């Protein structure tokens, strides 16, 4: 029912409801009146027959008493007053038939042998009226009248046609009335629905529904408008907040950018400017060692060596810092790179630099990657360097490079690190091992992380002390 009604508009539903209600009402009323008419007609029939029987009673009684058959025949005929009566039979005290109405007529219905076979009442579509005739408490005869229901039925039939006509007229009139009246209800609703739809479509919360009545729909319109008001207000607030936030973000971004640039410029200039004094220190220390070696005793020479080593380390540090700052600023140019080849190349270089440190390296063949090859080479170089570096003390150093489900990894079986400090791994100048244990500036992994970050990827590591480490990274596709 509801699923069928779903497809109709409120207008149609209202009209339908009104029509069906009226229809049901008229039909019910018709049925009621037809039932009433049936009872009424039957009662009337019974009443009429009872009355005429009473009227003829004394005549019949006298005729029976004096066995006057002519008078009995007259009485029978006069009782058979119209077509409603099928037959009138008059019996004497011994229940033998004495007279019947219009014995020769076409519609002659036979008289029953025993008029008392059934009591008075409706029998099989007929009404039987049985009246015993008494004289001085002695039954001297019986009047039997059989009436048909033709009149009653025609009356009911007339009522049925009347009801059909009334149903037609009432339906037509009420359809017209309903069509006019339902507008009073549906127009405000459909206007409201239209407004709501156009708001939903256009997102224009400045629209308002027109209020045309003070009933529930009017209340709904008011509530709807209030809701719109609230939404509009909130919208405006949100808009102003958004603008404010955006300007704030812009401001902060600009500030941050400026600060960053300043910082980078500072670190770059510091690194750059530190280089020439450092070169001077190293150069003059070397000059001292070469030109005045014979005038200096061995502790002095040792000190000079240390000055040189320290200044060289500082040089490396500064180089690293410059790398880092270059990595940060350099524009990224991506193309598809044969990553396996790059790794093998880097591994070869590293092995060439340290021929004494034998490491078994395996590189998964056929890996390719979309990246900036120069920057990615820095990543691979740093990670391979680290792997070589931390496997220095391993008995059978092994390093493998590969890729699984878009995640690149480089694994070694070296010293590893404590996972508790994993978050410090990629910070600048953060070192998990002492300089005595393993060489390093603490800038390498920071540079690696910066490059991966600039490629839109992610880098992380897993390790256990003395069980090796695995570095994972991704690049955005």
């Amino acid at each position, binding site marked *: 029912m509801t699923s069928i009604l779903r497809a109709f508009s409120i207008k149609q539903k209202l009209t339908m409801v009104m029509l069906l209600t009226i229809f049901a009402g008229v039909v019910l009323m018709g049925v009621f009146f037809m039932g009433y008419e049936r009872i009424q007609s039957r009662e009337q029939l019974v009443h009429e027959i009872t009355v005429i029987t009473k009227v003829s009673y*004394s*005549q019949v*009684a*006298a*005729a029976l*008493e*004096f*066995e*006057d058959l002519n*008078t009995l025949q007259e009485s029978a005929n006069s009782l058979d007053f119209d077509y409603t009566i099928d037959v009138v039979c008059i019996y004497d005290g011994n229940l033998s038939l004495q007279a019947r109405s219009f014995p020769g007529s076409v519609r002659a219905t036979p008289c029953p042998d025993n008029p008392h076979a059934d009591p008075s009442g409706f029998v099989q579509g007929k009404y039987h009226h049985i009246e015993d005739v008494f*004289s*001085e*408490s002695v039954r001297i005869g019986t009047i039997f009248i059989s009436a048909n229901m033709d009149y009653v039925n025609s009356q009911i039939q007339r009522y049925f046609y009347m009801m059909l006509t009334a149903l037609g007229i009432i339906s037509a009139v009420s359809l017209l009335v309903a069509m006019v009246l339902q507008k009073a209800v549906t127009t405000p609703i459909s206007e409201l629905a239209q407004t709501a739809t156009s708001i939903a479509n256009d997102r224009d919360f400045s629209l308002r529904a027109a209020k045309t009545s003070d009933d529930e729909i009017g209340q709904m319109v008011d509530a709807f408008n209030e809701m719109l008001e609230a939404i509009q207000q909130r919208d405006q607030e949100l808009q102003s907040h958004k603008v404010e936030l955006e300007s704030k973000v812009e401001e902060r971004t600009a500030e941050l950018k400026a600060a960053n640039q300043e910082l980078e410029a500072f670190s770059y200039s510091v690194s750059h400017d530190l280089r020439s004094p450092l070169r001077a220190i190293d150069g003059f220390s070397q000059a001292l060692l070469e030109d005045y070696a014979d005038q200096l005793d061995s502790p002095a020479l040792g000190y000079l060596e240390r000055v040189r080593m320290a200044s060289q380390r500082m040089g490396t540090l500064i180089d690293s810092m410059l790398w880092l700052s270059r990595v940060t600023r350099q524009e990224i140019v991506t193309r598809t790179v044969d990553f396996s080849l790059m790794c093998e190349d880097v591994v070869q270089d590293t092995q060439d630099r340290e021929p004494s440190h034998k490491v078994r390296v395996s590189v998964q063949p056929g890996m390719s990657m979309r990246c900036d090859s120069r920057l990615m080479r820095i990543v691979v170089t740093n990670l391979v360097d680290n792997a070589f570096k931390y496997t220095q003390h391993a008995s059978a150093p092994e390093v493998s490079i590969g890729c699984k489900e878009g995640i690149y990894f480089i694994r070694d079986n070296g010293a590893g690190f404590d996972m508790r400090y994993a978050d410090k791994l990629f910070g600048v100048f953060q070192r998990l091992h002492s300089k005595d244990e393993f060489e390093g500036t603490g800038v390498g992994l920071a540079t690696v992380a910066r490059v991966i970050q600039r490629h839109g990827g992610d880098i992380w590591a897993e390790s256990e002390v003395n069980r090796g480490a695995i570095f994972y990274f991704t690049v955005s596709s």
Partner: protein
Amino acid sequence: MTSVPGFGEEEARLKAAFIYNFTKYVTWPQYIEQAGGALHVCVLGADAYFDELSQLAGREVRSFKLEIKQLKPSDPIDSCQVIYTSGVSLRKFLPQTANLPVLTISDEPGFVDAGGMIGLVTEGRRIRFDINLGRARDVQLQISSRLLQLARRVESP
């Protein structure tokens, strides 16, 4: 005794029934009606019907109870309310009833014309009757219109 053979017994029964039925449609003056009690049906001369008529004794009509008496021609008739007579001299008998509220019935031909009230007539196997309404009215006997309707002939002044 009768012209139709084999009808005698039936005829007597019918006549007795008619006499009883007449009493239902005839109203005597008020003093008799209110007194009630016995309604005397006297039989004068019609000895042949007495047996049949005497069976009516004890039958009830309104507040009356029928009593059957056999009269001799010399007996007084003022205690009778109905007299059924047959085979007696009407000229001698009828004047006696002239001022009495007595319903006179007879099967004598010409009884009604002679001044009797109800005359029974045998027609084939049926019995009909004539009524002299004037005579009945003279002595304050009321005859029901129902009975008049059934009469073959009604004499009225």
